[in-house]
Structures are given as C-alpha cells and as structure tokens.
C-alpha cells in the first residue's frame, strides 16, 4: 500500500493532526495497519469503509478511547503532541475541549436521566473555570447555533422529549460548545431519516465554515460525504486503500476496491419488466389502521391515533412496488396490517382475489402466498435453532405436510437459490455474516414459493457491496420465480433502482404514486420533492436526482 501520498498537505504549519505509522491490534490480531493521515486546520476529511474496515477504531484511537486490551504503536500528533504517549489526565483535558466526537446513535448517546441543559453545561464546566451562569449562557448560545433555540427547546428538556435529529443536534452542541479544533463525526446521520440527515449535514457544513473547525466525517455511504469532504480516504480491513479528492476518485480511481465500492453504491440490478397485463395479486382498498392512545384518566373514552389513512394500492404478479417514507409515516403499520398482525379499522385487503380476515389471524392458504423479510438480520432469528429448522419453519402452512425427504429437497433448493450451500443447513445463525443472514431470511421466505414477498427495509442494515449482491439476488428470483415485491425503504436511491412503481407515504397517507422513473424525474407533491432534494447523491448522479 502506498503511504507516500498525503491526502491533505496544504501547509505544514497549519497541520492539526498527523498520524504516522499507526498500528492497532488486539490479542496480536491487527485492527489498523500503518495508517498515515494528516489534516490541516479547517479541513474536512471523509473516511469511507464498510463494517469491519476499522474506521470507527481509527476515530477511537484519535480520541484515546479504545476499549481495554488494545495495543497501539506509531504516532498520532495533534498540535505537535503525540496522543499515544499522552497521559490519561492530559487526554481528558483535550477531549471535549480540543477534540470532540459525535457518535452514530443519537437515541442512546445522551444520558436519559439528565436534562439537555445540564449535559451541555457539564461539558463547559468540565474544562473551563466559569460560573454556572456563564456555563448556562454558553450552553444556550451553542444550542441556538445548532438550531435548537432556547424559546422552543428550553434547557430543562430531557432527551426523551426530543426527536432523533434534535438529539443529534444536542450531541453536536456538546461537542462544539468549547470550539474544538477537531470534530470527529462517526456515522452521524446513519440512524436518521433523509430530511433529518440533510439538516444535520447542512449544520456540519455550516459549522466548518463558521468555526474554522476541522472535521473527520466517517461514513459507509459515499454519497453522504459528497459535497462536504475536501478529501476522502477509503478503508478496508484496517488499511487505507486509496485517498484523494472524491470527484477525482470517481473518475480515475486506481484501486479495484474503490471501483467496486463505487460500482456497488450505484448498482442497478438487471430486472425483467412485469407484464402490464398481469392481474393484480395484492389489492388494498381504503385501508385504515388505528392505534389506541393511553387514556388521560380512567374514566375518559379511549382515543385512537389513525396511523394509516385510507391507503389503496395494488401489486401485480412479478411486479416490484416501492413504498417510501420517513419514520413514523405509517409504513410499518401498513406492513403489519398486510401480514394480519394488526387489526384493520376500515377497508379491505385482497390477495389473489381472496379477502383477508379483518385483524384475525390469516389462513394458511393466504400465508402460503405471502412472506416477509425484516430489516435486522441479527435480531430476526432464534439463535438456538440451526438454519435447517429456521428455514423450513414456514412449511407448516402447506396443505399437505411434507415428508422429511421432501423437506430436505425444498430446503436445499431454497438455500442454493439464495447462493448458500447445502451444508449451511447444519450451522447456527451466529456463524453467518449480516449479508448471509439476510440470504437465509430470504430463503426462509422463498421455501414455500410465495407470490409476494414484503421486504421491510430488508437491505438497509447491509454494507453497500453486500446490498448490491442481495438486490441482484432479489431481481434474479423475481425473474425465475415470478415473485412480486413490496419494497419498503427510507432509502430513495435504492428504491429507484429496483422498483417498477413507487408510492410515497407521509403521515399515514399515500401522497404521490406512479411509475418510479416518472415520480423521481418529475415529483409533483412537495413532500416527494423535499425527500428527493434531501437524498445525498454521488458526484455523477448530481444531475440526475
């Protein structure tokens, strides 16, 4: 690996952070190998890598917050001071004051039992010898700066009273309250909705411009760093494989892995168009679903919240329909209603012409035709069962029970069609990676040869290259087995590449629908326009979306 090319070398006087020959390992197992980086004041560096590439470990190394048991070698020079040699006490003085960090999960990054004001002022008081009043003033100003004006968001608010995006703003406020020279943001927007993500990214851009802040933005998504980062480095298995300007990398990347990553990010699977004359498979008419809200008093009447409001949609055989919307828009409720897991307040659902029971459990005949794949490949399997048992489970809905031999044939077929091996049947789920687990989930759905598979954020938790493989698999299966998909996602760029038609959902209603290309090229509803504008794009897509 070439280490001679410095990503950022504006002016050596201005160098803020310089990493030389950094090696990190745990129990002799290398985590980071010979990392070389340098960053000037006010620079923005994007670090891109898939899970396991070591990008978060690099961030934690700079912060000096690696968990116990890690061995480090090399130099991390911050303002000419080698942090690897620094005492814990002097690191405590730097953290939060000169170097700050923002983490991925805003929902859990704040202490739930302390008010936001206390958490921001604490940071100030920790490093500056100021009065409570002065600390509170600084906290108020900082919260204002990150877009949480005190009139609307008083310091006495608790984290649970704020949304995910607002919490991330509080975390950013804590990080920048003391005007640090360097901010490290590790996947700061991955857990957020697109429009919220756009807001946070804009905020980071503004802070960089206004505060002379150097920023390291870590992401798995090339599109997220596009437009912010001056330079990016691509990491893989603890190595920096390539570095440079994002647009240049897109045009003239040297390294096959970078090319592969870029390919995977904009991968469009080959798809067979569904016959337009096909009869509808799933037909939903004016479907509404309610949630009961907890009563104010025991004597007050129960109140309901309408999560899905008169939604109509139809899916033809072999067709792929996208359903997009942000969290809380009702897409999961709709899914639950389709699967018979949720009572229906109004409307009807027909599958293959047969009406589905209202809220009651679905008949086996219906279940045979419809299966689901969920988002979390880690949480949706019973860890105590082997793959064989997990995958053959849906077979019990068949009309005639299969003999053991027939079950094995079906199991092997399902495993092979998702690209796994027959021998995998005797393994436990923890022996597989996230992408493999999602294949197993698809095999489980596939084994009874359903006509419709509901994919509920089924590729959202996957790395881009794995995601590309799964998308290819899905479209190959659609062609060979003639399966229809309801593809539910918050990721518009993926939906665009794999669906024939798309529905946009907001506050329980379908606000726009149409052929995918038509909707994306010419969105008519303001919400669709907003979503599209907020979606991060790759350099070569800028003209398209």
């Amino acid at each position: 690996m070439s280490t001679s090319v410095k990503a950022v070398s504006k002016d050596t006087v201005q160098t803020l952070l310089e990493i030389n020959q950094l090696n990190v390992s745990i129990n002799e197992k290398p985590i980071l190998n010979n990392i070389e980086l340098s960053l000037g004041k006010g620079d923005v560096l994007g670090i891109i890598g898939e899970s396991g590439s070591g990008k978060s470990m690099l961030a934690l190394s700079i912060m000096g917050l690696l968990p116990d048991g890690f061995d480090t070698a090399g130099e991390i020079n911050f303002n000419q001071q080698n942090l690897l040699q620094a005492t814990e006490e002097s690191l405590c003085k730097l953290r939060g004051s000169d170097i700050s960090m923002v983490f991925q999960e805003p929902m859990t990054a704040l202490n739930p039992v302390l008010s936001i004001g206390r958490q921001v002022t604490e940071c100030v008081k920790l490093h500056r010898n100021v009065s409570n009043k002065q600390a509170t003033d600084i906290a108020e100003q900082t919260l204002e700066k990150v877009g949480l004006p005190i009139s609307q968001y008083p310091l006495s608010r608790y984290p649970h009273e704020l949304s995910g995006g607002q919490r991330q703003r509080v975390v950013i406020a804590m990080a920048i309250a003391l005007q640090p020279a360097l901010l490290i943001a590790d996947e700061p927007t991955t857990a957020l909705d697109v429009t919220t993500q756009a807001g946070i990214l804009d905020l980071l851009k503004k802070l960089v411009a206004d505060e002379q802040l150097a920023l390291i933005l870590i992401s798995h998504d090339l599109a997220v760093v596009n437009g912010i980062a001056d330079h990016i480095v691509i990491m893989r298995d603890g190595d920096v494989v390539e570095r440079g300007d994002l647009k240049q990398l897109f045009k003239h990347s040297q390294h096959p892995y970078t090319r592969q990553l870029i390919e995977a990010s904009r991968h469009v699977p080959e798809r067979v168009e569904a016959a337009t004359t096909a009869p509808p498979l799933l037909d939903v008419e004016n479907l509404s679903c309610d949630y009961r809200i907890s009563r104010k008093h025991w004597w007050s009447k129960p109140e309901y919240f309408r999560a899905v409001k008169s939604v109509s949609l139809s899916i033809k055989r072999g067709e792929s329909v996208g359903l997009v919307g942000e969290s809380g828009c009702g897409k999961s409720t709709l899914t639950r209603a389709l699967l018979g897991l949720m009572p229906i307040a109004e409307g009807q659902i027909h599958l293959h012409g047969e009406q589905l029971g209202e809220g009651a459990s679905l008949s086996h005949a219906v279940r045979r035709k419809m299966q689901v794949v969920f988002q979390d490949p880690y949480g949706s399997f019973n860890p105590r069962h082997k793959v064989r048992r997990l995958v053959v489970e849906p077979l019990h809905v068949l009309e005639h029970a299969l003999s053991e031999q027939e079950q094995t044939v079906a199991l092997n077929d399902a495993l092979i069609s998702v690209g796994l091996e027959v021998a995998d049947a005797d393994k436990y789920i923890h022996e597989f990676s996230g992408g493999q687990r999602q294949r197993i989930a698809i095999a489980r759905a596939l084994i009874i040869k359903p006509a419709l598979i509901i994919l509920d954020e089924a590729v959202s938790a996957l790395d881009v290259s794995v995601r590309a493989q799964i998308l290819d698999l899905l479209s190959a299966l659609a062609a060979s087995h003639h399966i229809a998909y309801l593809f539910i996602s918050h990721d518009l760029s993926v939906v665009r590449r794999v669906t024939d038609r798309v529905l946009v959902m907001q506050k329980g209603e379908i606000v726009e629908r149409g052929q995918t290309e038509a909707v994306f090229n010419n969105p008519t509803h303001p919400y669709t326009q907003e979503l599209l504008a907020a979606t991060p794009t790759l350099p070569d897509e800028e003209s398209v979306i």
Partner: protein
Amino acid sequence: MLRYLLKRLTSLLLTLLVASVVLFVTIEIVPGDPASFMLGINAQPETLEALRSELGLDKSKPQRYWQWLTGMLQGDFGTSYTYKTPVAEMIGDRMWISLPLTLFALLLSTLIAFPAGIYAASRRGRIGDATVTGMTQLGVAIPNFWFAMLLVSFFAIKLRWFSSGGFVGWDQGLFAGLKSLLLPAIALALPQAAILTRVMRSSLLDVLSEDYMRTARAKGMSKRSAIWRHGLRNAMIPVLTILGLQFSFLLAGAIIIEKVFYLPGLGLLVFQSIAQRDLIVVESVVMLLVFAVVMVTFLVDLAYAWVDPRLRARS
C-alpha cells in the same frame, strides 16, 4: 408528577383494601375456634357462648370485617386471645426492636454493597472483581444464623465486647440500644449485602456499556467521574427495587436471628401467635406487614420517578 403520585396512592389504597379482605377471609377459613381454644376442651357451652360474644365472634362476618377494619383505622387492633392485652400495644413494643433492627441492617447492607458493587463493576474481569464476586457467592450461600453464631462466639464470648443476646431497652440510651442490636444487624445485613452487591455490579455493568457513558468520556470525563455522574443514577432502579424487597423481608423475616439473639421482635411474635392460635395477633401483624410492603413500594416508586424523568412523563 402530581398525577403520578395520585395514581400511585390510589393503587396503594386499593391494594390495602384487597389485602385486608383476603386476609380476613383466610383467617376465617383456618379451622379452630379461638374461644374454645382459649377455654380448653372441657369448657361449658354457656361460658363458651359468653366468651364468643365478648370477642365479637357471634356477629355476622361482614359486620366483624367492618369492625376489624374501622378498629384498625383508629389504632384499635383488638385484644390478644392469649395474653388479654391490646394487640396494638404488643405490636408497638416489638416494633421498637424490629424496625430499628431492620433499618440498621439495611443501612449496613447498603454501606457494604454500594462501594463493593461499584468497585467490582469498574474493575470488571480483574482480580478485584473476582474477589468481590467470590465473596458475594459465599454471602449468599451461608445462612445468616451461621454468621450470627460465629459473631456471638467471637465478639461476645471470646472478646466479650458485646453481650451474646437480649435487648437492653432504649431507655438505656441510643448508644447502648444500638450496641445491643449491632451483632444481629450484621448477621442480617451480610447475606442481604451480598445480594445487593451483585445487583449493583450487574446493573452498573449494563449501564457502563451504554452509549451515553462513551459520550461522557468523549466530553473529557475520567472513567471514575463518568461512573459517578452518569452511571450511578441510571444503575439505581434495579438496586432500589431490591432494597424495597429487603426491607419488607427483614421486618418480620428476622425470626431466626431474633431467636439466636433472644430479641423479642415481630418475627417471634408471629411465630408464637400462630402456635397459640392467637389469630387476632396474626391478623394484625400480617396486615401491618402488608401496609409496610405497600408503603415501601410507594416510596420506591417515588424514588424511581425521582431517578428517571421518563417515568414522570409516562404517567
């Protein structure tokens, strides 16, 4: 917050009411007529009748329940069948030993468990952690009367620092009173401290792996101050639950220790009353315990709300 309190208070009163009905019915089902038990098998029917009406046993059941309930509300728990003294007085006397003993034991157990649990959690997997965990295992496994006997044989018999049993009475002064309760309190506290240490340790370990602990460190806090300022309060909820349970258990569950140290506490009173069919005493003590449990639960609920703002909001 006010609504939370009201809601909790209402459910507390309902619990007490239901408990009193269940208790009354249970005692009614228990075979044996207290009047005939008191007079012996050779009693004259007239004498028996007279005693029954004196004790109020001839009235209808709802009437007796109502009498019992209203009496208790006015502090009148009835008269002991065996000793012919007011039950309230008997319980009051015992309370002066059992309540201080319980609080003393809880205080000791907290004083041991908090530091030990925090210490073990902050040194997870190291020698210190293993030592503390090992000791708690011993503490849970060894019965408290065995501790009690060890304490007596060492501090009372060998060193002669304490008396081996009995209670001097609070009229001898606070110090003397506490001194005679110290050994039994230690014996009661050790097993409880072992349990509490384990709860504290595991609860704090859960909290230490939370994202906000990492945030606290990224702000520039040392490990230690992150634990104190952000960890402890979040780790308190399971600990408070166990503390509440331990209080109600110790209040009347100290019978073996009371026996070992010759302390006339509530536990012994219940034991004797059951043996003598003195049902009115049993009834009253059990009701008192239910009251104590409900009150402690209420206090623990209040403490939850104080610790966690989300609980305040939810109610």
